[in-house]
């Protein structure tokens, strides 16, 4: 039973971790808590759903399941499209809203508030377009495999864990090994100084949005594949995302991924021990504990407040 909760937690945690990596990037480089990040997750899932539906009905062969998975080649292709569309959406919102506010030199908290308004508009637009009824990528039932230790897992779940960890490692390498990654970290440290040193800060801002929104689309697609797609899915994920980003230490990509797994495991064990109805409280408990005990997070540098 414990092993099963461990696996459920890792699957859920992979989705939270992918979202939290995006939150931690925007938080450290754009310097505000983006309340609209959950909506990028939802929009990503809907983009993938629509593209998958269109591809699957245009070319029936694309809808045929690949190997043990529940989806055909149409889904990976749709996912790529969803990543691009979500990134475009994030750039559009930045161009319309956050960019002008940054140029006016608005305080951090004005940006937070603007993100809150944007979240409201984006989420309810989804509900207007698709209604609040849940959607599913496939109606087929997937048979869980038996793993050693009496654990049951579907191939889709294992794939989510694998891709989540793989993307986190890839992003970490990108940030630490490439010139663009180093430039991003420089902007996180000090945007003025980075600009003086010849870094195009606006290009870095765009890169952050593309990466954050792309990862959010992946998280949304997996969440939709493993559970369901709803307009509220991003709102429900928002507190776990923030809790994980703060627990991991703002700015730390491996930290956000590991903390996402911790929050996911916490939720899975809470479901077993306390009851499923209290699941949403776990992220808050984690958040309060971090703020009380270690506000800089597990892997965060203690920055001048």
């Amino acid at each position, binding site marked *: 039973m414990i092993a099963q909760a461990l696996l459920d937690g890792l699957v859920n945690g992979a989705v939270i971790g992918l979202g939290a990596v995006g939150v931690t990037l925007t938080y450290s480089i754009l310097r505000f808590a983006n309340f609209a990040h959950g909506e990028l997750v939802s929009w990503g899932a809907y983009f993938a759903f629509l593209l998958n539906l269109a591809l699957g009905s245009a070319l029936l062969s694309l809808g045929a399941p690949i190997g043990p998975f529940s989806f055909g080649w149409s889904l990976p292709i749709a996912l790529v499209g969803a990543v691009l569309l979500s990134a475009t959406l994030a750039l559009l919102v930045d161009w319309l809203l956050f960019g002008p506010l940054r140029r006016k030199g608005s305080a951090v908290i004005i940006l937070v508030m*603007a993100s809150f308004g944007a979240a*409201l*508009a984006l989420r*309810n637009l989804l509900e207007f377009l698709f209604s609040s009824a849940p959607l599913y990528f496939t109606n087929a039932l997937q048979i869980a495999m038996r793993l050693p230790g009496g654990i049951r897992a579907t191939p889709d779940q294992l794939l989510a864990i694998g891709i989540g960890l793989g993307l986190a490692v890839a992003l970490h390498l990108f940030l630490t090994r490439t010139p663009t990654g180093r430039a991003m970290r420089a902007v996180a440290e000090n945007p003025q100084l980075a600009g003086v040193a010849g870094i195009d800060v606006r290009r870095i801002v765009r890169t952050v949005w593309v990466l954050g929104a792309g990862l959010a689309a992946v998280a949304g697609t997996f969440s939709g594949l493993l559970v369901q797609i709803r307009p509220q899915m991003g709102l429900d994920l928002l507190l776990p995302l923030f809790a994980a980003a703060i627990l991991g230490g703002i700015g730390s990509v491996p930290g956000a991924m590991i903390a996402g797994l911790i929050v996911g495991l916490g939720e899975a064990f809470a479901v077993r021990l306390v009851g499923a109805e209290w699941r949403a409280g776990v992220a808050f408990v984690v*958040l309060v504990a971090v703020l009380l005990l270690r506000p800089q997070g597990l892997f965060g540098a203690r920055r001048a407040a």
Partner: protein
Amino acid sequence: MILDLAAYLAFFLTVALSYAVITLGLNVQWGQTGLFNVGVAGFVAVGAYASALLTTPDAPDRFGGFGLPIIVGWAGAMLAAGLVSLAVGALTMRLRSDYLAIATFGVAVVVQLCALNLQTVTGGPFGIGFIPRPFTSFAGDPLLFSLANLALLALVVLALYLFLERLLSSPWGRVLRAIREDEAAATALGKPALRFRLQAFALGGAIMGLAGAAQAHFIGFIAPDNYLPTLTFQVWAMLIVGGSGNNRGAILGAVVVWALWALSGSVIGSVFPAGWQARAAALQIALIGVGLCAILLWRPRGILGERRIVSRHLVTAPKANPSLVNNTPPEIPHA
């Protein structure tokens, strides 16, 4: 016909004024002090449930129902919501300014969760009914009953307004603004910024609790669905439209936004077919979100805007110094 209209108008204004109380509370936190609260609905709910538990008659299937007078319920609501605010503030106030926002968002989620799941205290998803309503002796005459309730709420808003205006121009209120504008300078003058912020946050929370109690006793029934994030968004829209930092603006904004909300609701209700009503309601909220962003971009001062000078010792100064009447929104220093 005219009597119906008058009764509806009284009902409309009573609801609008109950929102005005919440908006005044938010104005203490955001407008005066620059503390961002994303969990307004949670604090309102704490007040509503506290008052309902204190004043409802004894119920066999859940905890409490103490049958106390309504005024005790209101006091209890302020105390409960104030204490929750104090705890959240103490947890996050030393940290970055947006950690408070995240924590208050969490509070709203957890309050909603408790309201739904602690059935023995909150009645679960069905909520608490039979909350005593003031002026039940007038209940036979709907118009008189509505007018009496309207008068009570108008009195609450007026008293609160006078109290907050007095407080705002007092040394305490001026310190709050000083801290919001330049924390380092205020601290250098010997004002403990942390303590003042905590006091302001707790005061604002207590006022939201009072509003929750007033609404609960006016309607007579509460359920978790009344305290969804939509409530938080509406109150924010009210404060931003009216002009944050200005108490009259907060009240005006509450009435204007509530009127727009009710009006657009009935327009959408008549334009969209029955199957689309739920979706149309979502469109209404989406428009509020866009409106909020548009105001932040183009008119951050709102309709009335903030009076920059509140001390009566400085009444002649504003025209002489253009920097005091500039167009900036309330800002707090980068934390």
